[in-house]
């Protein structure tokens, strides 16, 4: 059982049960939708920018606990970041979910719970879907796919 908790640590289960910022924003400056067609997971990310920084982030979606918890955490983690910093963070999160090593930095106190996915290769995509979508939104894309 123990290693099941690596994929589903308390933070993940908490965010999956009580997703934060799960709504559409009123004013959206950037948005994108991400799909994992193999399993049907979907995440839409909405961003409101102020002076080039993310003032507010929210998401809508459906899917497994990991994908939805990851999206929920994302909305909390990117607040205040400029576009470049958000892209940087996103790449780090994706790397972490892939190899399991948690980078330094306060933003990773919550996000570190996504590192467990690395031990479940077929679930890495669940953990990264929201982040791929964030990147698409920031780059002005409309759609992203984790496949």
């Amino acid at each position, binding site marked *: *059982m123990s290693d099941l908790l690596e994929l589903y640590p308390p933070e993940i289960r908490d965010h999956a049960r009580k997703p934060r910022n799960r709504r559409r924003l009123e004013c959206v400056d950037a948005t994108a939708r991400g799909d994992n067609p193999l399993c049907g997971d979907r995440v839409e990310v909405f961003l409101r920018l102020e002076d080039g920084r993310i003032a507010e982030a929210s998401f809508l979606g459906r899917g497994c606990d990991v994908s939805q918890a990851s999206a929920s955490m994302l909305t909390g983690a990117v607040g205040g970041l400029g576009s470049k910093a958000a892209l940087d963070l996103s790449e780090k999160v994706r790397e972490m979910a892939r190899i399991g090593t948690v980078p330094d930095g306060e933003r990773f106190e919550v996000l570190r719970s996504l590192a467990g996915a690395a031990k479940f290769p077929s679930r890495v995509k669940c953990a990264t879907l929201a982040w791929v979508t964030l990147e698409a939104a920031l780059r002005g894309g409309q759609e992203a796919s984790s496949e």
Partner: protein
Amino acid sequence: MDLALAPLDVQRIRQDFPILSQTVRGRPLVFLDSGASAQKPRQVMDAMRACMETAYANVHRGAYHLSEVATENHEASREAARRFLNAARVEEIILTGGSTSAINLVAHSFGRGMLKPGQRVLVSEMEHHANLVPWQMLRDDGRGIGLGFIRITDAGELDLDSLHAELRKGDVGLVAVTHMSNVLGTVTPAGAIARMAHEHGARVLFDGSQAAVHRRVDVQALDADFYAFTGHKLYGPTGIGVLYAKHELLEAMPPFLGGGDMIETVTLERSTWAAPPARFEAGTPPIIEAAGMKAAIEYVEAIGMEAMEAHERSLVDHAMRVLPEVEGLTLVGSAQDRGGVFSFSLDAAHPHDLSTFVDRRGICIRAGRHCAEPLHERLGLESGSARASFGLYTTHGEIDALAEALREARRFFA
């Protein structure tokens, strides 16, 4: 001996499958994903090795003894497939890389070669992508060939009224439907479908990827024009499948792939085509795989298709009793005639999470849309489903273990 009465000795059979004695974290491996690909018995592995160790050479080409032996063995595999499907002639058996290649072959050689502009292909809403995407690609190829859809009922059965309505439009050249759904387990009334199609002048293709593993198939009794199955689901190797097609069709169809062994004469400017089946088998064939597939066919023949069917019926009955007892579980589809494939969802957990959870108990099930996205849309299952599918080595105890693990999952994710 009446094979239908001979019970399957599952424990003995399991000993033929080395992988099944694996343990996962101290628990026995419970492999419930045979619908995606079945495990292989020792007999198949031995046959492949024997092919490489004692009788290997390229086939159809050499005038030396070793190549002649290899060619005879290879053609014996074709004959085994003919017998398995009860085809009238061995030339009606095309060896392909799998069901997907087989169906694509038909979409090209028959679809592009023999269908006429204005004609339509009909597929059902419950097709595997392998029997949908090739027809979409044909439609989009600018040849004026259309694509229509046969609806399914809420129970997950083929809606024969819908088929009839489409056929009556008079423009259907081919009906291409699954003989057994890889999601719902539904077995379709292939004989009736063929009759209806033929009455309206249409040809019929059955995707037998699942059905051929679970039912005795007789292409002559079904009056199938095309029938496809794939070796790896029939306890054989990957990389091989079979396309059955009526000889008159094969004779009229142009080739699909170009290369060695499918030609009669070649000059730089022109080639003429060999007779079937060679015309449709360009290049070095799957020689080692054919040896494995032959062994797989002989393996299931030795057990007896009737015994396998009886075993499967008992597994299906057991699953129909045990699975619905799991609180929060909803089965997908409720066809009358069904094989050992069960898709389901659980209220408390996403299929992906479920699959990961039961995997930690050594239980292998699939989660997702099982290469049947339109079907999942049709059934409102946007998050896909979890699927347990049985093989001839599956036991009642394994189904019980799944049910128990699903209960635990429900507590975990609640």
